[in-house]
């Protein structure tokens, strides 16, 4: 692939910024990172060719500031902007501002983002394109409309996504509180408190199709991802291909997804999400007009580089004619979050004191953290993704479990142990988990801590005089660089 631009600015942070910087390096494109004061020591800042500070920690004053990001692009001479996901990635106003500044927007046309960004409108557009949608209504105050949806139902934010601004309602008595909570969260997260009501399908699978369009009228589907393993509508483990999708069903999904993308004049990378009911019927859920968090499973299962394709297509190139439509193996991804699975999965903060990444055949780590980095309340608690590829599903699953047991994060509580235990549940091993599986099923305990775990901790409590210290390396404790970095910063 030829070099589409000389220099690209990445308007994001964390692991996705690292991912895009890596693509830039592979293509010989200069990379510009932006960062808040909080992220001065972050991994993406150190990896990029240039880095520009864009304001204080709150995202509203830094990563969501259009003028500051455009100023950073102008100051560094960047020709194009990649938004990553989250932050401004689905903000059509930002896409327009990028184009108005004479820069290339690495993403879909703003009009397609708007059409799909308002979920109420996108549902209507899909009906028009003969793509099946879940029964629902935005006329929440109309009793007849509500009755037609029935219960259980789900309240969703029209501008929502990523599980934010969603509430399940089991009966009429829960509706008022769910509406209020959902409107508040949507208003705070997206600046738009509009919500709508949809029938809640029982035991569906979440299957989504990767689509790609170029500016020469070609739109293709590159297989599906199964993201049924969710908790509170946040994806936990994703895989490709879906264990529930046959080659014939894959062709139907591809056709529906390409129709959906074509209906809004789509270009660049996008994801069309569907719910697959136990009876084999599937329904359009929403389209995410950006690169998806779980894009690596498609990359690993199909042998493509979606970020490199995004850059090529944004520069006006044609999609390659030989893009695969059949997977070459199986890939599975686990999302590493700073959260405490034993305390209601509440997000956790702290400084990363020790960090060791797994490796080995078929193992890939997309991570945004490094030792010494502070995990704060200001940003999303996702720290990294671990992806494993195998010739078949079980090999991918075993490699992923092995990789997770190799991974070490000390200083911030994570969900790594929980993920390993989820991978080992009989339902997941059999490929039978639906979107409600994790909430229904208590995940078993790992093992009790050994006496030696307590004794080692006791030794550090007894001998270490001050906060942030550790015993020396001779005593079998970590490299003093980790402890030293902590001491300096604290």
């Amino acid at each position, binding site marked *: 692939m030829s070099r589409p631009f000389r220099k690209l600015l990445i308007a994001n942070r964390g692991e996705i910024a690292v991912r895009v910087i890596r693509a830039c390096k592979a293509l010989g494109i200069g990379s510009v990172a932006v960062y808040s004061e909080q992220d001065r020591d972050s991994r993406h800042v150190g990896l990029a060719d240039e880095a520009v500070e864009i304001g204080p920690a709150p995202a509203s004053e830094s990563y969501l500031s259009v003028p500051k990001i455009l100023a950073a692009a102008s100051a560094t001479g960047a020709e194009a902007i990649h938004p990553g996901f989250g932050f401004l990635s689905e903000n059509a106003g930002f896409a327009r501002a990028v184009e108005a500044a004479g820069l290339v927007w690495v993403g879909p046309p703003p009009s397609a983002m708007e059409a799909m960004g308002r979920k109420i409108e996108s549902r209507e557009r899909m009906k028009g394109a003969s793509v099946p949608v879940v029964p629902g209504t935005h006329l929440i105050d109309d009793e007849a409309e509500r009755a037609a949806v029935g219960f259980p139902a789900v309240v969703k934010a029209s501008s929502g996504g990523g599980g934010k601004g969603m509430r399940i309602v089991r009966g009429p008595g829960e509706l008022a509180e769910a509406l209020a909570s959902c409107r508040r*969260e949507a208003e705070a997260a997206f600046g738009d408190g509009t919500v709508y009501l949809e029938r809640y399908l029982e035991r569906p699978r979440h299957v989504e199709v990767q689509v790609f369009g170029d500016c020469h009228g070609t739109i293709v589907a590159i297989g599906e991802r199964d993201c049924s393993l969710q908790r509170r509508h946040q994806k936990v483990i994703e895989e490709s291909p879906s264990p529930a999708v046959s080659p014939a069903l894959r062709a139907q999904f591809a056709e529906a997804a390409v129709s959906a993308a074509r209906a809004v004049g789509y270009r660049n990378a996008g994801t069309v999400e569907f719910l697959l009911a136990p009876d084999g019927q599937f329904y359009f859920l929403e389209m995410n007009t950006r690169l998806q968090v779980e894009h690596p499973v498609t990359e690993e299962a199909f042998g493509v580089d979606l970020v490199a394709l995004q850059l090529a297509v944004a520069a006006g190139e044609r999609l390659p004619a030989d893009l695969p439509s059949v997977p070459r193996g199986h890939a599975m991804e686990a999302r590493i979050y700073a959260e405490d699975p034993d305390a*209601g999965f509440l997000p956790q903060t702290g400084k990363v004191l020790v960090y060791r990444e797994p490796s080995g055949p078929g193992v890939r780590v997309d991570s945004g953290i490094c030792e010494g980095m502070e995990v704060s*309340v200001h940003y*999303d608690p996702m720290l990294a993704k671990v992806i494993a590829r195998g010739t078949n599903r079980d090999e991918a699953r075993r490699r992923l479990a092995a990789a997770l047991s190799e991974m070490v994060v000390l200083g911030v509580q994570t969900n790594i142990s929980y993920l390993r235990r989820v991978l080992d549940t009989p339902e997941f091993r059999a490929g039978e988990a639906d979107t409600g599986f994790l909430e229904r099923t208590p995940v078993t305990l790992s093992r009790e801590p050994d*006496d030696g775990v*307590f*004794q*080692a901790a006791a030794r550090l*409590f007894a001998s*270490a005089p001050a906060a942030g210290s550790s015993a020396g390396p001779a005593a079998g404790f970590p490299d003093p660089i980790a402890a030293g970095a902590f001491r300096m910063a604290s």
Partner: protein
Amino acid sequence: MRLRAHGGGATVTRETDVARDLLPGLLAVRDGRNVWVNYRGETWRVERVAERPAGAPEEEHDLTAPMPGRVVKVLVSEGDQVTKGTALLLLEAMKMEHEIRAPRDGAVTKLFRAAGEMVAMGDPLVEIG
């Protein structure tokens, strides 16, 4: 000393001696209040807990903030009887709302925070008598 380890899906409290020999392959680091230990693929956060006076109950009475954030709404009043699992208040952090639930049955004897207030990790939120 008395230590409490969180990890692997459980919380375990144990009276323990200082190690003479460390387990091979064990990794540990201290950040003041916590010691983080990784051993054979599992990680624990270990904290020191006060010696328990004879006859004192194992559980503490206060419910503290499990994370820093902002109180969005308080769902109970002082004097309310609650059962285990009752939603007590909503805490917002990292752009998400989280329900803080009663860890056991009892009466709400004290509310430490009102809606709109910021809380730090470990701040007391609700006392259940």
